[in-house]
Structures are given as C-alpha cells and as structure tokens.
C-alpha cells in the first residue's frame, strides 16, 4: 500500500466531486428539501389528517351552530371539512377514497356514511363516535413522562442516512462503473497504482464528502428546526462515519465488476429501495412481522439508524450502541474484502 498514490487519487476524486456543481449541489439540496418539506408539514399545528365531507352545503358557521354535528368534532385539529351540494357527489368521493367520512348535516342523528375498505374512514368514524359520547364516559387522559420528541426529530437522522446511502451507493458504485466503461480505469491500470490503493482512495474520498455534506446539512437544518439531541454529537459523527464506510463498501462490491451503467443502476435501485423502506427511514417497523424485522437487520442502514436515534433520543453512549458499531464494522470488512478480491480494471 503506497499512501502517496492513494492520496493522489483521493485528491483527484475530491476535485472532481467539488467541481461537478450539479452532483455537489444535489447532495446538499436533496436532504435539505426533504427535511424542509417534512418540517413544514409536521410543524403545522393545523395539520389535518382526515377529510370529512358534509352535505348539503351551507356556511360553516351555520353548521357549527346547527347542533347536528358535535362541536368537539368540528373543532378537531385533525379534520378537514369539505362541503358537497348533495349526497350523490359526496358518496362518489367517498367511494374513491377522496374523503374518509360523509355526514348529513340536516339529520338530527347525525347520519353518516363510510367506505368499508378505508382504514382512515374507520378512524374518522371513531373520532365522530367519540365526539358523540358524554364527557364523563372518557377514560382518564394523561401525558407521557419525559421530553416528547417530534416526528421530525425521529425522521431527521433517517433522511440524513438515506441521503448517505444514495450518495455512497451511486457515488461509488455507479461512478466506478462509468469510469470502467469510458476507459478511465484502464488508464490508471497502466500506472503502478494497485486496486487496493484505488478502492481505498475512492472509499475515503466518498466518506469525506459524505461526512462533509452531512455535517453541513445537519447544522443548517438544526438552525431552523432545533433538533433534540440527548447524546454526544461526536458519537453521532462516528456512527455516520462507520455507516458511510459500510454503505460505500457495498457500492464498491457493485462497482467491482460492473460494465453496464444501466444494469448497475437497476441493481442499485434493487438494493437501495428495500433498504430505505426496511431500515426505518420513514416509519418504524415496530409491530411488523418478526421475519421482516430480521431481514431489516441485514442492512447496514438499519444499524446506523438504530444507533443514531438511540444517541439522539435516549442519550446512549458508545457502550450502549456497541452492537450496532460492530455490525457496521463487520459489514465494511466483508464487503470491502469481496470488492478487493473481485475488482477488475477492464471492461
């Protein structure tokens, strides 16, 4: 291993990345835009989850005072009311899941319709039925102890890790295949550079860029949303470093032999999409079948997110996340060894 040669390749790749304005900008813009979008959606206190149709159409004020629909139901933050001139139009919307519940305003009951195949319709119905109960029939309501984290606090590391995954897989896997196809690798093979030096330089360069962009995005987003972090920032940085290593090493395995950009693109999608959905980037797998949770453990992203979220929300220290660290290190060693063994410079 000649570090001078590796450093030359490391610097060359970094120059290439920083000069490619489109790729460089996208690495910042993508996570920022997603965080900003979700931040705006979930920070809105008037966020409405269910859509309730009402007919016949009259001004809302009049409807609120009509007494047919309970006041607590009409004032719920999670409901959006849409008026229809007649029952037929409302039913048509309900049939196609455009609304979750349809209520007849003039009925003294009130009378309502739901789509039996709509889970959100069922939930909206429960809200209506609860609103119809007398206040003394409610169970005792208490708030959970401790600091409550927002959905955005839970989501934020997921978005950063997802960005890291796409950047690692595509930035290493796809790019190296392109270099192989256009002859860049062949030109390098004609020099004393070894495969290990080249792969190490590619991986370290990508890690450097990933950590650089992740740090900038983190602090930029934190200025707006003030994320709750109970544990050490340094440990989070270290976890992202380990996660980046393992994700880049998967990229290197894909890059080791590929000669077709189209095929590599397909394989990258095949790996990245299940990893994104099963690694709890967007939603928790709590309560999902055990076999799905076991499959999720095969992805480095799962271990990265578990560890980062525990550090963020529970203040976990290194010892508490050592299993995840070992898993990430293990993935890196396995995939990097495979990549080095099967790497080919030529097409």
């Amino acid at each position: 291993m000649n570090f001078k040669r590796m450093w030359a390749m490391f610097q060359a790749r970094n120059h290439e990345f920083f000069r490619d304005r489109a790729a460089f900008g996208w690495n910042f813009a993508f996570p920022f835009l997603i965080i900003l979008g979700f931040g705006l959606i979930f920070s809105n206190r008037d966020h409405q989850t269910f859509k309730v149709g009402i007919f016949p159409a009259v001004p809302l004020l009049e409807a609120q005072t009509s007494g047919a629909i309970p006041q607590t139901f009409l004032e719920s933050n999670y409901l959006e009311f849409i008026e229809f001139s007649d029952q037929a139009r409302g039913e048509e919307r309900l049939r196609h899941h455009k609304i979750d519940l349809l209520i007849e305003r003039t009925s003294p009951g009130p009378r309502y319709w739901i789509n039996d195949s709509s889970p959100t319709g069922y939930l909206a119905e429960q809200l209506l039925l609860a609103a119809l109960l007398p206040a003394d029939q409610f169970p005792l309501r208490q708030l959970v102890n401790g600091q409550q984290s927002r959905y955005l606090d839970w989501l934020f590391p997921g978005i950063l890790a997802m960005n890291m995954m796409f950047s690692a897989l595509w930035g290493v896997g796809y790019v190296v295949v392109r270099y192989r196809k256009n002859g860049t690798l062949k030109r390098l093979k004609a020099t004393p550079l070894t495969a290990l030096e080249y792969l190490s330089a590619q991986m370290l360069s990508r890690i450097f860029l990933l950590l650089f962009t992740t740090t900038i995005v983190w602090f930029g987003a934190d200025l707006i949303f003030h994320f709750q972090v109970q544990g050490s920032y340094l440990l989070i940085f270290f976890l992202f470093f380990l996660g980046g290593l393992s994700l880049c090493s998967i990229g290197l395995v894909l890059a080791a032999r590929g000669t077709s950009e189209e095929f590599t693109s397909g394989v990258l999608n095949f790996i990245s999409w299940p990893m994104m959905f099963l690694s709890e980037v967007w939603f928790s797998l709590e309560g999902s079948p055990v076999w799905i949770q076991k499959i999720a453990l095969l992805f480095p992203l799962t271990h990265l997110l578990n560890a980062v979220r525990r550090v963020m929300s529970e203040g976990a220290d290194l010892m508490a996340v050592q299993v995840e660290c070992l898993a990430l290190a293990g993935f890196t060693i396995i995939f990097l060894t495979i990549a080095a063994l099967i790497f080919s410079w030529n097409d």
Partner: protein
Amino acid sequence: MKPILEIIALHKKFKREPAVDGVSFAVREGICFGLLGPNGAGKTTTLEIVEDIILPDSGEILYQGQPRSLSFREEIGIQFQHTSLLNFLTVAETLDSFHRLYQKPEQLTTLISRCELESLLARRNNQLSGGQLQRLMLALALINRPQLIFLDEPSTGLDPQSRRNLWEIVQQIKKEGKTIILTTHSMEEAEYLCDEIAIMDQGKIIAWDTPSSLIKTHCHGSSIRLPTSALHLDLDRLPFPWTTRNSSVILEVNELHEAMNTLLDLDVDLSEMSIHSPNLEDVFLALTGRKLRD
C-alpha cells in the same frame, strides 16, 4: 542490438474467437517498431497483453530478457487508443495526479514544454480538443521517463499540424534511445517513424521486416503514368502491362531506367510523366487484400 521485448507464441481468444493467434516477435532496444494491420487484426489486443492490461490465454512475454516484474509499470509508458480522464480536473491537476503515481517521474516543466501544454494547464480535460487531448495523453505516457513506450494509433483524428508535431516528438524520444511500439493505420506515419514493421492479419504476424525490405520483398517494379495524348502509337506495341484511367495510361514496369529508355526509343513525350514507386501501402494491400474489414 539485444531485444528489449520478446513476445513468444501469444494466444488470446474472445468468446472462442481467436483475436491473437500465435504471435511472436522481438523488439530491439532504441527503435520504433510498427504494428500494422487492418481493423480487427489483433494489434490492440496484442499490445494490451504486452502492456499487462489484459491476460493472454497462453504465451510468454520477456522484458529485458526476464518475465515482466512488478516494476514493469514503472518503466513503460502507454498511450491508449480509447481511454478517458477525469472530466472536471484541469490539465495541470491531471499531470500532477499521474506524476505522484510514479517513483522517478519526469520534471513536469520539461514534459509540459515537450508536449506544448503550457497554454492548456488551467483548462479542464473535458474542454480539450481532440489534438490537445492527444498531447495530454502523450504527456501522461511519458510522465515516468519510460524506457518502452506504447502508442496505439496516436495520430487518429489529428489535423496535419498536430500529426507532424506528434511525429517530431516521437523522433525526439527515439533519439534519446527509448523504444517505441506504435500501431497506426497511416502508412505514411509508419514509413516516416518506424525502423521495423510487423504486419498482422487475423491474429497472426504475416510479415515482419524494415519498411524498405518489406517493399522490396512484396512489391516489384514501379508504375509510370502518362497522359494518353503523349502516346502517338498503338498501346499494344508497349512492352509493359498497361491500364488506362481518366485519360491517362499507367504502365507497370520492373526496371525504371530500362523502361524510360524504351519509351524514349518509341518517341513518347515524357514531359508530363509521373512515377509512382511502391510504398508501404502497396505492401499492406498486397498482404492483407483489398476486401473491407469491420
């Protein structure tokens, strides 16, 4: 002079199709060795096997009398026919990156001056013209002061000025005692630069000699072109084979001097005569035929 490179019984197949079929030759130190052949003859495959870019199925390659060692790549320079560089790097950064890959590299200022890259240093690789890119590729091939240089069709796509400039650089390199192995489709280039030439076809070496010996061996005689108006006689009286083309008569002669005397005896006007002596292209066509190749 001892050979710097010996290639012995090289074989390589791609999907059961032989690309290189028992190729053997030796290259003497300090010469420019040309490898010629039609498209698909196996020149580039042979070169890339020798360069250690692809592996042969069988055969032996000796560099300075020994099998190639790990230091082989420190001692050779390669300009590939098809290759690419990092698009967003400047010429200066590209040279610097490659410079750092070698143990005993050439001074960059010398290299930049030799390949006339001074005005291009700040330009990105993807902004270079074909000729400029070839000059950069040549500079990269020379960056480690190689003893053995492979140039795979280096003048393809170059304008006449750039081609002449390339030839001058190759001549200078040769004067420094370095060995060059060149493939080209330009017979003019091969004749101008090469001391020895091997002609390949269908994966085999079909001829190998100096350019003049190849011409002597494979082409006989010359051709004399005269306007039809210069001949006031029945063409069948001419003692040479002849053809007519575009109001000219082309005579195929073995001995030029004798032929001239004969024509003067026949009172032929030689004032508009042109003579075509056989060249490497004639050898090439004679050996590989005129049928189109893929």
